């Protein structure tokens, strides 16, 4: 019953997601970053819908809806407003220049694929090959969190990682049990709210969101 088309669709989504996370990795402008993040969420939504449609896993529609609401609409919205309110549109510079970051990213992708290869061989789902990509996305966003210097961008990286995980969940196994999905979503939401609050605290304490302010606690 699995049509090659659907699986191609999913692979396409996967490719787009990977592309997006690469572009996020190299993107300097914070607002664009948010848009990219929204796009990523959108793609994720599409892929989930496709999976749900093809495999008649209807509880996946809930998580699709969750993704849509949370990651495509809500989070980007508040992120946008936060960034405008905090005036943190510009990431001044990253710790590593873009090309080097890309290179490392590439290596990571290869590593992720090799890692996921034996697993996806076991997979019976239509989404078998995408697990590697999911892992790659997780790692790329990890890399992004490492290389960025602004609190906001770090958070976006964090959310991108969550996306990767969602994608993994849907692609490897047709979604986690509903309770878990809900719980995870809730945590993400609350986490975002808290972070939002934090931005303001950080701003009022250090009057900038630059992370090099947050290096006072250390061993000398």
């Amino acid at each position, binding site marked *: 019953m699995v049509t090659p088309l659907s699986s191609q669709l999913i692979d396409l989504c996967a490719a787009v997601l990977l592309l997006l996370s690469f572009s996020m990795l190299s993107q300097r402008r914070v607002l664009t970053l948010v848009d990219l993040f929204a796009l990523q969420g959108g793609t994720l939504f599409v892929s989930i819908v496709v999976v749900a449609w093809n495999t008649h896993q209807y509880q996946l529609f809930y998580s699709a809806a969750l993704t849509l609401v949370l990651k495509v609409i809500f989070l980007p919205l508040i992120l946008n407003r936060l960034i405008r309110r905090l005036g943190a549109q510009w990431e001044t510079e990253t710790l590593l220049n873009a090309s080097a970051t890309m290179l490392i990213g590439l290596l990571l992708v290869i590593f992720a694929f*090799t890692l996921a290869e034996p697993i996806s061989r076991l997979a019976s789902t239509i989404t078998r090959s995408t697990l590697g990509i999911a892992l790659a996305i997780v*790692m790329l966003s990890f890399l992004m969190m*490492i*290389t*960025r*210097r602004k609190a906001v961008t770090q958070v976006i990286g964090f959310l991108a990682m969550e996306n990767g995980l969602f994608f993994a969940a849907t692609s490897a196994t047709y979604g986690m049990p509903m309770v878990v999905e809900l719980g995870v979503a809730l945590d993400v939401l609350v986490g975002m709210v808290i972070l939002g609050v934090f931005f303001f605290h950080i701003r009022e304490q250090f009057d900038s969101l630059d992370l090099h302010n947050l290096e*006072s*606690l250390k061993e000398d």
Partner: protein
Amino acid sequence: MTDPTCAFFGITLIPVAWLVIGLLGLVRIRSVPWVGRILFPVSALLGLLLGAMALSGLALPAQTLVLPLGLPSLPFHVRLDGLSRFFLMLIGFTSAGISMFSAGYLRPGEGTPPGLMCLQYHVFLASMAVVVLANDAYLFMVAWESMALSSYFLVTTEHRLPEIRRAGFIYLLIAHIGAISILLCFGVLQGGSWRFTFDAMRAAHLTPLWASLAFVLALFGFGAKAGLVPLHVWLPEAHPAAPSPVSALMSGVMLEVAIYGLLRVTFDFLHAQLWWWGLLALGLGLFTALFGVVFAAAQTDMKRLLAYSSIENIGIIFLGVGLTIIFHAFHMALLAAVALAATLYHCLSHAFSKSLLFLSTGSVLHATRERSLGKLGGLIHRMPWVAWLTLIGTLAIAGLPPLSGFVSEWLLLQAFLFTPSLPHSFINMLLPIGAAALALVSALAAYVMVKFYGVIFLGQPREPTLQDAHDCGRPERIGLLWLALGCVLLGLLPVPILALLNSVSRELLGASLGGRLQHWWLLAPIAPERASYSPVLFMLSTVALVTLVTVAVHLLYHGKVRKTEPWGCGFPVVTARMQDTAEGFGQPIRQIFEPFFRMSRTLPSPFDTAPHYRVQVDDHFWYWLYAPVATVIQGVARMTAVIQRGRISVYLLFSFLTLLALLVFVL
């Protein structure tokens, strides 16, 4: 007392009773009468009882008991055999005197409140008793470390003084490291059975390599507690810091408990297989003894001096242990028995005499508030009791006949004289040197003790304040008397006491002096024509001669006795400051044994209007061993601090790399 099992229970109950007394101290924590006049005398009685019970049971076979406490897999095992009985006797009798003294020694308003001090003191006593009773590694370690802890708190009674805090820290640190090595030693000793009862360790059979490892670990661990060079640095710090009864307890009892541990492991578990262990112990012991006595000669603080003298005595004891091991390894049972007897006897005599001396310093301290020898003097007129009783202790520890110290040294020298019959020529060459060194040490000990006694009690008071020094109170007198009595009896009646030790040496070596002690008055361990010593006869004839001479002289003599000022040697005035100071008295030794010391001297120039001479004597080991270790640790710490530099990106990188590394690892 007759029924052995009831005696056994009685003995095991006494530590509990001590704990109870300690807790009772908390009832009225600030009341000196309650603690001093009631609790401490009671615990002294308990000490006597313990000693008596242990003594009466010395010859009995071993008894064991399992208490429903401790780990589920390893409940507390208790065992009472000759060795533990002997050391219990030591603990009981010595602590009896010390507790009695403490009863009068306590004063209100000095650091820790008396009630709390009473608790710590009795926990200390009880834990020492339990160490000796323990028959499994866990109980042993628990008691051992409680001993260290309680004594630490006692040492830091005057915790407001920084040097005392420092002393306490060094003490506890070294004690802890020693305990760790003992723990390792037990880990080796169980020899594959993975049961940590001492019975299992007795049964275990180790390859020579593992056995040697265990022995070295034990030597390190127990040596750290006993103050074996180079692990001695805590001792001269901690003993002066502690209140005098505590110093007495630490020096007179705790060090011997460490010796107990070594004997237990070496002979009971390892059966003293290899002769080079003995050589090692002997060498270390000799060096420790020489080191200790030479440093004692250079001290200017009376309690530091005694502490170093303790190091010296511990050295002598280790030397005895070493000889015992050597003889035992070569299957010379009788000689091993002689050496062991000497060792145990020295433990006993050191316990009595050293506690006596430390207590007397306590009385001096209370009477004069002065610890530095340079400010004392002439106290024999102000405090005759203390002075005369101390004289006995001084002579005993200097190893002079007919007191206790001499007996053990005599036996040791006898043992040395037999070494040429060893099958191993190398040791034959080596051991006479040992004998010579031992002789040198005991002669030096006499020097040190003359300095100690002479500077404190004789001559003219070096400070005007000493004029109103007062003699010690009645409880103190009783305590001192008891200990002095012990020194005398140990000196005069070696034969009956050695006969009591037979059971111990039979347990450990399978041989004893047994039949060789027929005459109670004549000590002839091998054969009367070989060597003999009869302190009683010695004493009697001396006394007889003294009285005879006195009588004779008084018959012969017709003149009167006039009292005048001493001859001023032509000086216009004779002041107390013209006497030898402690530094001055130690100066020849400092000169002869210069390489031992790390000295910093400031000499006055001939043109000084107010000439000032200062000399400070330090311990090389501190700078050679301990300081470097500390710097290394600090360096490593500085390096490790690199991973905590506060940059969140770096932290993220850490976890990322960890992840990748692990993934590669499992791939």
